[in-house]
């Protein structure tokens, strides 16, 4: 009746997951109770859950990503502390079967449910605003994408208290992940969570490729798009190109596990190495999907806070597209040691070194952007400077790893672990922190507290290096990754130093939370009244903060590379705004429950397939199909916003801009 699901699936004998699950369930119930008591459900339903507004969806993605980053960080704390404690005769506090789930969950959550949602959230929020349009190409599909990702995250979290998670690492290599050696439900949780959210991500990629190519405001040719949009485009192209590989490969593994097929088994003609090959054909472009929008964020931050246009815009675009294409030609460097031989290894080693050229071009362009400008050391700028230092070193260790003979020594050692954290944290996480600080006022109408932001940065920067620099040393001393127990006491000082670093990082996370709380408390003082708190250069800063749901009352007509900068300069020169435009009614897409509905049934289907409750899986699939048909039958897709409401919102914006103009005039007059 319930497939493999029994009461013993709940970890009664394991205190850590049991207590954690209890606490999480209590917090969840508390939140639901609070929302009910305060009668927030209609608001949440109307404004967030069924919203197809890219800004709302972007914020929800970022919220999901931040929450999951914290869960992944908790896993990291457990790993570092276990390794510091379990040296010599001591066994630490995490038995191997538990530790293996922790490191697998850590990687899976950080990449699929932490970094990806955050990056996609930024793409969602910014791209239509920067392109000067009202929404993405397929707003309802966008909502479906978000809710599918949330469904995947929910499944991973359910595995903590019902069943177990995979013990195979964040990429489940066969034959360990085959049903012979992983008979439990752990790998199945992984497979369905990642497959469901992977479908959501693929749809996001399709959405953004179409939006960027086919929906731009008048005058915005390709070479006038802001740099973040270019990187979002390259990342979306990569998503469309490689996420099907992930889907196909995990589907093959699922067929092996569920139905006894032999794609990757050890016997009867299966080829486990084919899994490694295919999964990394996805896996390498995946990290560029993460890092390219991060580079885009830095381009925006560097130009804004240096007060200069981005240096070498054309070469930046070329470098972005170069990285996009070459990133699909380097994937073998993740398995140099699997025995492809010198010819193949040499090709991929050279390609992996060559791809660094694209990033090098970008780094130099950012540095030259700062040169000759009036640099303001705001919080986003601090994160960006920290990125330059951190990422360049991480990239250099990457080029070291790209040399096959060197990689043979340090493959899967702590050197590798240090390298990829170096580039992901230094590149992606620092960018996300900079971006959160930079665009928070646009999303919520008030800035974040600067003092706590700087505190958080310094804790994070110092904490990162104190945590991960010892791991480079440990890698060179011979320590492999994913060790539950340490046999070599000479590694102890480095392991201890790493734990100290984790402590500093914890202070950083706490500072970020404090920053948020303090900013919300002081939001009137930090209010962004004009919509342009940082003297920005691209079109999102032309809107009020927070941006109205239709983004622009009148679609702007773009004439130069930095769309908003030209408009602003002209206004400042002429001491007045342009004439009031002709306001017309605007068509906006209606809200839709189909995203949330699809995710509910996806979760039900995924959960029932994991536990092999076949009737429930059928219910889930049929329910999802019924949802599609009902949605496809709807007659009303859009509603009209009357011209006077548009006019009212826009006149308020113009009044705020006029006030800003007068303030600038006063400032110029007094200097």
């Amino acid at each position, binding site marked *: 009746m319930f497939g493999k699901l029994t009461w013993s699936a709940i970890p009664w004998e394991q205190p850590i997951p049991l207590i954690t699950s209890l606490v999480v369930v209590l917090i969840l119930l508390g939140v639901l109770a609070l929302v009910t008591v305060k009668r927030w459900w209609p608001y949440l339903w109307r404004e967030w859950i069924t919203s197809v507004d890219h800004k709302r969806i972007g914020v929800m993605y970022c919220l999901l990503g931040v929450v999951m980053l914290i869960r992944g960080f908790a896993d990291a704390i457990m790993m570092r502390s276990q390794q510091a404690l379990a040296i010599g005769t001591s066994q630490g506090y995490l038995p191997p079967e538990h530790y293996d789930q922790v490191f697998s969950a850590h990687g899976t959550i950080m990449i699929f449910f932490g970094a990806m949602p955050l990056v996609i959230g930024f793409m969602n929020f910014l791209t239509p605003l920067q392109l000067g349009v009202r929404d993405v190409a397929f707003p309802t599909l966008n909502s479906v994408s978000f809710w599918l990702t949330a469904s995947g995250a929910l499944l991973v979290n359910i595995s903590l208290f019902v069943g177990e998670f995979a013990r195979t690492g964040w990429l489940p290599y066969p034959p360990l992940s085959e049903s012979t050696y992983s008979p439990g439900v752990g790998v199945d949780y992984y497979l369905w969570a990642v497959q469901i959210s992977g479908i959501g991500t693929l749809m996001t990629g399709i959405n953004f490729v179409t939006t960027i*190519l086919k929906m731009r405001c008048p005058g915005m040719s390709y070479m006038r798009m802001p740099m973040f949009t270019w990187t979002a485009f390259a990342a979306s192209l990569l998503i469309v190109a490689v996420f099907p590989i992930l889907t196909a490969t995990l589907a093959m593994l699922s067929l092996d596990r569920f139905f006894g097929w032999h794609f990757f088994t050890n016997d009867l003609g299966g080829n486990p190495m084919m899994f490694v090959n*295919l999964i990394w054909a996805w896996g390498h472009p995946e990290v560029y999907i993460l890092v390219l929008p991060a580079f885009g964020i830095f381009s925006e931050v560097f130009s804004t806070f240096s007060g200069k246009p981005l240096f070498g815009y054309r070469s930046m675009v070329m470098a972005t597209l170069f990285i996009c294409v070459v990133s699909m030609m380097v994937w073998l460097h993740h398995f140099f040691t699997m025995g492809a031989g010198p010819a193949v290894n040499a090709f991929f080693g050279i390609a992996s070194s060559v791809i660094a050229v694209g990033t090098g071009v970008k780094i130099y362009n950012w540095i030259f952007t700062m040169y000759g400008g009036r640099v303001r050391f705001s919080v986003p700028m601090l994160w960006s400077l920290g990125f330059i230092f951190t990422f360049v070193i991480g990239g250099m260790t990457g080029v070291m790893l790209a040399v096959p003979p060197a990689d043979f020594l340090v493959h899967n050692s702590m050197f590798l672990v240090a390298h990829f954290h170096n580039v992901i944290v230094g590149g992606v996480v620092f960018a996300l922190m900079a971006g959160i600080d930079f665009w928070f006022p646009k999303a919520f109408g008030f800035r974040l507290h600067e003092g706590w932001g700087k505190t958080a940065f310094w804790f994070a920067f110092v904490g990162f290096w104190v945590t991960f620099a010892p791991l480079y040393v440990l890698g060179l001393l011979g320590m492999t990754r994913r060790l539950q127990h340490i046999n070599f006491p000479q590694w102890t000082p480095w392991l201890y130093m790493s734990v100290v670093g984790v402590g500093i990082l914890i202070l950083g996370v706490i500072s970020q939370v404090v920053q948020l709380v303090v900013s919300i408390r002081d939001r009137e003082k930090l209010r962004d009244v004009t919509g342009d708190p940082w003297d920005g250069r691209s079109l999102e800063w032309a809107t009020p903060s927070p941006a109205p749901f239709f983004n622009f009352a009148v679609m702007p007509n773009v004439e130069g590379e930095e769309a908003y900068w030209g408009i602003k300069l002209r206004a400042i020169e002429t001491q007045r705004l342009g004439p009031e435009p002709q306001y017309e009614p605007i068509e906006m897409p209606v809200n839709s429950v189909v995203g949330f509905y699809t995710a509910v049934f996806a979760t039900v289907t995924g959960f029932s397939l994991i536990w092999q409750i076949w009737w429930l899986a059928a219910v889930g699939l049929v329910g999802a199909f019924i949802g599609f048909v009902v949605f496809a039958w709807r007659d009303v897709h859009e509603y009209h916003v009357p011209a006077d409401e548009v006019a009212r919102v826009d006149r308020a914006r113009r009044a705020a801009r006029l006030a800003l103009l007068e303030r600038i005039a006063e400032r110029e007059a007094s200097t």
Partner: protein
Amino acid sequence: MSESEFDPRPYASVLDDREDHAPGDEPVEDTGHWVLNSNIGLGFSVILTLAAFALANSQIMYAPAIPVALIVLAIAQMGVHLVFFLHVTTGPDNTNNVLALAFGLLVVFLVVLGSMWIMHHIAGNMTPMSRMADVPF
């Protein structure tokens, strides 16, 4: 999108050469042209399909070259489908479609040929099964 009711304009005037087209969508052509394209496409496809089946089952070519010839015929037929059924052309209104197709083909070739190259080399470096007994433990 102010098309919440039946679109009253005849289609011939709505989408024209100055705007991008999606593949498989060429309403500026009248029905006659469309049917003609379909007929030509079917004709070529039938010829190419029959040729492929005939070739596979015959001995008229140097045997190792037959798979190559079959692949050439397949590529030709895919081209026929793309041009006659999907109207993917090289006009400026189709540039995005062609570029997207080229990108997709690049990925397909990288994945298929790359995997074949890599796995062939890996397989070549495996210990032969007959020697497995000699490998310690």
